[in-house]
């Protein structure tokens, strides 16, 4: 089972995403933004980082990359696609997911071990979680504030498309404490926290158990594997 990780100029967490896929039991496949070739992958991860410096709007320039046309196509055909942080921003810019992501309300970049709740465990990327399960995933962004107009928010809430919600602290001013959302089909998921940084003991977030020991992120990837193999 092959999972593509697209590298854009300025991608940072691409190798981390590859490691997470490997630890979850699939084969990571490096994809390059400038090509049109998805190399027969079964699922795609758009990794975190600062593609094109995130200068215009985060993810905006990357969403015009050649490979994004293929990603949109594959997503519309049902392939599991995950956008993490900058990848989430690209999905929004590519209109695969609704709404927008803007500068954190406090104006600063923030890195923290974030508690989130899995609001929807029926997506391709969350089927290994219990409903309403509370997990800890590192978060790091400067522009993670989720916004959308009222109608969109109502639809997201009404249709259960809010996939993850911040608990305890809202780290960036996201409306409705939204940390991640999915499309209706549940194959496309975007979230601001970084599950690929919670896959290996010793390098993950702090938990009540022990420092740097959280591996809740791993199940995002095993969920996708289960879905593809199903």
């Amino acid at each position: 089972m092959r999972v593509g990780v697209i590298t854009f100029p300025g991608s940072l967490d691409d190798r981390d995403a590859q490691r997470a896929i490997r630890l979850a039991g699939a084969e990571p496949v490096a994809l390059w933004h400038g090509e049109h070739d998805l190399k027969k992958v079964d699922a795609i991860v758009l990794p975190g980082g600062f593609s094109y410096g995130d200068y215009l709007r985060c993810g905006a320039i990357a969403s015009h990359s050649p490979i994004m046309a293929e990603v949109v196509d594959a997503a519309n055909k049902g392939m599991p696609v995950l956008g993490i942080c900058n990848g989430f921003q690209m999905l929004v810019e590519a209109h695969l997911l609704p709404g927008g992501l803007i500068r954190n309300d406090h104006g600063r970049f923030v890195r923290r071990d974030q508690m989130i709740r899995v609001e929807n465990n029926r997506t391709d990327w969350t089927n290994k979680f219990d409903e309403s399960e509370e997990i800890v995933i590192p978060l790091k962004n400067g522009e993670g504030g989720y916004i959308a107009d009222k109608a969109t928010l109502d639809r997201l809430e009404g249709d259960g498309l809010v996939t993850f919600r911040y608990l305890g602290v809202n780290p960036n001013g996201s409306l409705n404490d939204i940390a991640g959302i999915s499309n209706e089909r549940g194959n496309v998921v975007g979230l601001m926290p970084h599950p690929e940084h919670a896959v290996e003991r010793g390098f993950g977030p702090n938990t009540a158990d022990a420092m740097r020991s959280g591996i809740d992120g791993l199940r995002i990837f095993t969920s996708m594997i289960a879905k593809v193999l199903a």
Partner: protein
Amino acid sequence: MSRHVADTVANAAATPEKEQPFAALGLKPDEYARIREILGRRPTSGELAMYSVMWSEHCSYKSSKIYLRQFGQKVTDKMRERLMVGMGENAGVVDIGEGWAVTFKVESHNHPSYIEPFQGAATGVGGIVRDIISMGARPVAVMDQLRFGAIDHPDTARVVHGVVGGISFYGNCLGLPNIGGETVFDAVYQGNPLVNALAVGVLRHEDLHLANASGVGNKVVLFGARTGGDGIGGASILASDSFDSTGPTKRPAVQVGDPFAEKVLIECCLELYAGGLVEGIQDLGAAGISCATSELASNGDGGMFVELDNVLLRDPTLTAEEILMSESQERMMAVVKPEKLEAFLAVVAKWDVETSVLGEVTDTGRLIIHHGGEEIVNVDPRTVAIDGPVYERPVAYPAWIDALQANSASALPRATEGDELREQFLALVASPNLADTSYITDQYDYYVGGNTALAFPDDAGMIRVDEESGLGFAIATDANGRYCQLDPYEGARLALAEAFRNVSMTGAVPAAVTDCLNFGSPENPEVMWQFMRSVEGLGDACMELEIPVTGGNVSFYNQTGDQPIHPTPVVGVLGIIDDVERRVPSAWQDEGNNIYLLGVTRTELDGSAWAGTIHGHLGGRPPQLSLNDEKALAHLVQGAALEGLLMSAHDLSEGGLAQALAESVARFGIGARVWLNDIIERDGMDLTSALFSESTARAIVTVPREDDVKFVGLCEARGYPVLRIGVTDGRDYEATLHVQDVFTVPVAEIRERSNATLPHYFA
């Protein structure tokens, strides 16, 4: 607009009498005279530009060179064992085993960070990272050492916001985990904050690259960002004089950084290295093309020909002199074999990086630069890059130091009552230099890369190098300007000792040193004396600990008006750990462990945080230092870590035992019961000293009960003083720090006090 025509070599020869603005460029009359003597004629304006930037204090180390030599001389065979590249290159390279090497260096960007804190700090990170890339390494982490003015001064917030924002922006955007640093507030840095940045890279032994241009006919290629008017005059005017005399320049002195361009440049360089496509490489930093061409040529076959018209410009109005001096960021210069040029250009194009071939390596022994078809530079590159002026500046013992040292903290009143000690304890916890720095560090990503085994607020940052074996390194940096003001020799030794101790606490074995020596004006003989003593102290201490200085940086002219900063020699120590899985964290995570104090406590309050915070006092002599004890402590902790006996290890430094306990309980909310009577009895002192003394070679460690006998046995076998001083106890809401018969403080209160300070001023 008429094109500015550069002064040619022929013109210079024909017009010897022409007056040149050497003084405005920071050159002294005798230096200008020497340039004329070297060339046998007056320099062209382009040559003058090159000599002026390259002979500036910043680039030539003219005031510090005679002292820095010690670092290369005070070495033993053991110190050379792991050293693949020593002082003098862009950064030192240390063999860490299994075919891996690490390169690291700390550098200053102080003056630009006062003028424009955000861009100044950002480009500081960018510059040091390029040093690391130019060694052939992949950068894997950064650290930042910051000194600001008084926390409540109206200008401090401006500088803090900008500097921290700039470091966060540039470092995060490069995808380099920030794993540690220092934050100090002191009025002595008011008009002259210190922004030092450290970068670390890793490489396989065979990937080592050096900055030299060898192989006649090889192409000289400039790639990366276009050259603009950024920071023209920055190198000479900013770094060799204090800011108030910058004088008029029509080009901006600030540089704007583009971390995205640098990130792409990093990946591009690594792909070039992997393809074996470069023979030599040099980053462009201070003095831009002047520096890169003259250094590459000097370190290689000695000759180079450059066509300056081929430099891609962002601003077409730049003159030849300005192109030579421009400090535009995110540029590199490579030496490429002609037959590999095509492959080189293909990689560069893949990354959308702009490139131009400037010229080639020659065997003429001359650096010749053409512009507009005319020869505008014809020099021996060594006279520009290597044989610059060397000064033995006058040194003078500062008369004031005797009075300062005589004014010991021992005369200060000491509390004996629990309530007062409790208040003092909390005052220290909340003091700007000991308070929690999360306001700053929460803006830094330490997750990126997935190899960060330890980061702030642990004693040292630690990175895994090899995923299979777990091989990794740890780095800590330290400098206590207050100690250095009292005694620069001892202060520098103490800085090294503290960094060494911090690294040792993680279980890593110290192996190499980098430093950034921040001082006042070298033209002030008292400052020069402080500098001389600090370098001697650091050199001697490195020799004693048998770890070599592999590189560093000197920053002079750090002063507000005539008032120099405290001598601030920032010292970074790199340690090696065979398997990061065995790392020892510095805080408590479990209840029911025994707490041991290692080392002896003396009444040493001079220069301490207690004296400064409680009494506003600075005087006396810094704590006494035995590097043998430091070594013994390090070996003990490494040994115990290897046997898996330690749950945590935290060194004692600023704020003494009290602060170490506060940090240990606050981190994960684990309380403790502690008793001081055994220390007081054994070491013979009062409560204040037991809590706040800053005696060296001490640490607190926690040990599971079942390992007690083994651990105490280990200490006794090694003859290291050990005392059980408490037990970890209580978590979360119930957690308290209970110092028996003295005071009790809920951990929540410690956290509240410690966490409130920085946000109060900056959030």
